[in-house]
């Protein structure tokens, strides 16, 4: 209630920064939900009409048809409220330790994604630092970094799992490595640009002080690259989520959002698939939001313009 009145207040009476953003977002969300309901009715009605025919039911009113298309057990496209109910049932009404709890599965995927993201970010920074300090590495490493991302992750993910399994590495780490594989790339590319972003006079200044390359890195290049790092990390953390989910598919994993997607598609549980999808995107969006928040706090501490 509080948020609703806040939205009305800012949209109706004041043009604030917040009001300027909340209103368009609300409109877009409402539009998506409307289109979603409409599509659900259209996509689910052929099956519904067939079942009427089988049950020899005639002259069913449009209203009844519409209502029935939104309460199928395995709809082509579940209606938003069906997904919402499923999410509510599997989060609030289930114990977190239960295999049926969406929070349990989300945590499995989230922790894998976070581990992969941290490893990917560290790897990306290390690669970028090596590249800007060594011309040979710049020439030799960069093409491979780019080539690594041209391989479809769906093709390489099973290979990584199988190869690591053969040498006895199982569980979370192989899946996290797929997240790492995806998320190191934007960080490496962004940080190469960021570490090279200082002005010429800023670098010359370090030279006049006879600063070592470590001092120049630590006191100039790294602070200067912070905006680039955070932009890259926003992309990296979102695709780390994708990597963790993709990593769960070929293992036939029993836990995680990927496992929920897989199980859902085996048994035609579209409501379960959609609730896992929504959960994954809500998680990814929250993670990106957290990185944005960290970005603002760090830049504020670094004395940037308010």
């Amino acid at each position, binding site marked *: 209630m509080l948020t609703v009145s806040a939205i009305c207040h800012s949209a109706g009476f004041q043009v604030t920064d917040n009001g300027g953003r909340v209103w368009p977002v609300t409109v877009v969300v409402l539009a998506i939900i409307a289109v979603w309901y409409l599509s659900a009715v259209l996509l689910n009605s052929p099956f519904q009409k067939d079942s009427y025919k089988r049950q020899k039911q005639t002259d069913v009113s449009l209203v009844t048809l519409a209502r029935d298309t939104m309460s199928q057990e395995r709809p082509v496209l579940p209606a938003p409220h069906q997904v919402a109910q499923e999410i509510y049932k599997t989060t609030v009404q289930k114990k977190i330790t239960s295999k049926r709890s969406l929070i349990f599965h989300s945590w499995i995927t989230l922790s894998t994604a976070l581990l992969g993201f941290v490893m990917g970010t560290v790897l990306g920074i290390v690669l970028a630092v090596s590249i800007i300090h060594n011309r040979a590495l710049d020439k030799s490493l960069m093409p491979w970094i780019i080539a690594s991302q041209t391989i479809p992750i769906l093709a390489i993910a099973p290979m990584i799992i199988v190869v690591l399994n053969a040498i006895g590495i199982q569980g979370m780490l192989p899946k996290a490595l797929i997240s790492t594989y995806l998320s190191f790339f934007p960080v490496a590319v962004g940080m190469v640009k960021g570490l090279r972003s200082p*002005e010429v*006079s*800023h670098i*010359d*200044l*370090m*030279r*006049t*002080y*006879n*600063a070592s390359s470590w*001092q120049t890195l630590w*006191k*100039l290049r790294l*602070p*200067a690259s*912070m905006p680039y790092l955070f932009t890259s990390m926003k992309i990296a953390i979102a695709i780390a989520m994708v990597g963790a989910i993709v990593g769960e598919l070929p293992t036939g994993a029993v836990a995680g959002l990927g496992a929920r997607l897989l199980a859902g598609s085996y048994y035609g549980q579209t409501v379960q698939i959609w609730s896992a999808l929504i959960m994954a995107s809500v998680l990814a969006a929250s993670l990106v939001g957290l990185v944005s928040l960290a970005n603002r706090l760090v830049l504020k501490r*670094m*004395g*940037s*313009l308010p």
Partner: protein
Amino acid sequence: MSAEAQSATGNVVTASDLSLRFDTNDGAVHALSDIDLTIQAGDFVSLIGPSGCGKTTLLRVIADLETPTSGDVQVNGVSPQQARLARAYGYVFQAASLYPWRTIARNVALPLEIMGLDRKERRARVERNLELVNLSGFEKKYPWQLSGGMQQRASIARALAVEPDLLLMDEPFGALDEIVRDHLNEQLLQLWDKTNKTVVFVTHSIPEAVFLSTHIVVMSPRPGRIIDIIESDLPKDRGLDIRETPEFLAIAHRVREGLRQGHSYED
């Protein structure tokens, strides 16, 4: 004390037969050609000339930020590289070049951190040099909170904090308006008088060069070379109104003649 007295009479910068050629895709550019120059301790030397005459390049050669193609340069009797490694000079860039994520105090402390001075010594030097450029009380401000003139004063404090005997300044007031520039010129002259440093100052303003300098080096472009070296006999203790005196105008006239001579073949 005797060493200081000795260095006060010695040559700080000597350049002989100095040339620098940049090889670009459009062919060679002679940035500097046959430069002979001696700068003595305590001098205030201005390098003046139109854009492309190599005045900044010459300053950068002295600072070991460029390497000459031929000829010899010495700074304090050693090569520019050795002088740079010994942190023998402070360099002030055209833009203040303060690091935006550091406060004014931490910007001034930057070279001191790199030199590995302890916290106490750093704090003392920051305080002393900010006071010297009249910026006490602005320690905790970030660069964007200061005006252009104040930023440039902070960058001068940063150069002075190294405590070099030689100050290299590359058009430090070029981007400032004339009123601020006049004010800073006066302050710089007082600073030079107080600290007894040797200053090499790049500018393209004739009044600025004449007002500040003991020696004015007039340069011309393509190839960058020295046209004239004018020794000024204006009193060391001078105010801005000296610019109306006949002596000042005579020197300014000679500088202008030199600049015109350098340009004559062009049209």
